[in-house]
């Protein structure tokens, strides 16, 4: 009845239950904290370096340059382990009603890295369409972030955007915005 085995069993079951309850409480509190915080972001697409077709992949490709100032330090809470920060180009073409292409990303590991200051930054991944649909389209670029917590729900947010018009014709010359 008072054997060691059942006692250990009860102890660990209790421990695990308590741990899970604590994690649930703590992470829902931190989710609430995050949903009421936002970073300060200033984003501007400064240049489209060229617009061409890639015949091998059968699609349009554009290279972009942008200026970005962002401060995530003020919203950094105790439950943020890493933050995935990314720029998404969103546009509509004749064949697709929703296109989202990540053109740049970075990972912030810790509050110290929470300030981003880039001038004339090149895209990390070029803006490639699904087909030949980029010419003359208006593209909206948004800064989004995904918070990877120490535990609990993943948090997604966005702040700051800038749009630009893709030229009507293919060009090897840069277009300055």
């Amino acid at each position, binding site marked *: 009845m008072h054997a060691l085995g059942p006692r250990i069993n009860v102890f660990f079951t209790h421990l695990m239950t308590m741990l899970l309850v604590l994690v649930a409480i703590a992470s829902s509190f931190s989710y609430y904290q995050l949903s009421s915080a936002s970073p300060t972001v200033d984003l501007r697409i400064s240049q489209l370096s060229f617009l061409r077709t890639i015949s091998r992949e059968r699609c349009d490709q554009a290279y972009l340059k942008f200026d970005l100032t962002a401060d995530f330090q003020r919203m950094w809470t105790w439950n943020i382990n890493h933050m995935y920060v990314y720029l998404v180009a969103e546009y509509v073409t004749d064949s697709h009603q929703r296109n989202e292409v*990540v053109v740049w990303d970075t990972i912030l590991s810790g509050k110290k890295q929470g300030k981003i200051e880039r001038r004339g930054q090149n895209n990390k991944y070029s803006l490639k369409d699904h087909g030949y649909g980029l010419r003359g389209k208006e593209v909206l670029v948004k800064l989004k972030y995904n918070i990877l917590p120490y535990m609990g*729900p993943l948090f997604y947010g966005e702040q700051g955007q800038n749009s630009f018009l893709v030229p009507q014709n293919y060009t090897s010359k840069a277009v300055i915005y």
Partner: protein
Amino acid sequence: MQVISLGLLLSGALITYKIFMLISNSESPIVVVLSGSMEPGVHRGDLLLLTNYIERDRLVSGDIVVYKLPERNIPIVHRIIKIHEDKNLDVDILSKGDNNIPDDRELYGRGRRWLQRPNIAGRAFAFLPYAGMLTIIMNDYPQLKYVLLGCLSGLALIGGE
């Protein structure tokens, strides 16, 4: 008597898992990350909870998803970096691991350029660190799995009083 209680224990675990499957609408509602391709945010041994509501959960870029390809058995946990949705709401998706330099086209294999919605097993909504470490250890040392299973069933059979 002991055999019955062991059976109850196992079926209880199975029922819990099946209920999770029902709630999350995903065939694998809990996934242990097996590779380091999502470092530094997600490590080997971390546990991800998934949902897979095809109608309600519209996939967007930046989502961490788990996908399975018919040619490969192992589910892969990566992030969506491109998504193109046509007028019938069919999507073409390209994924990439945060820690990988190229995107996943190489992984998809010959002839496949995009992932489609049926390839996606679920979208991560929560994260538990290290909770899947046991799976990792058992994956690395398969013998341990049998030793552990044997010990557990032995305990359930002998103990109980």
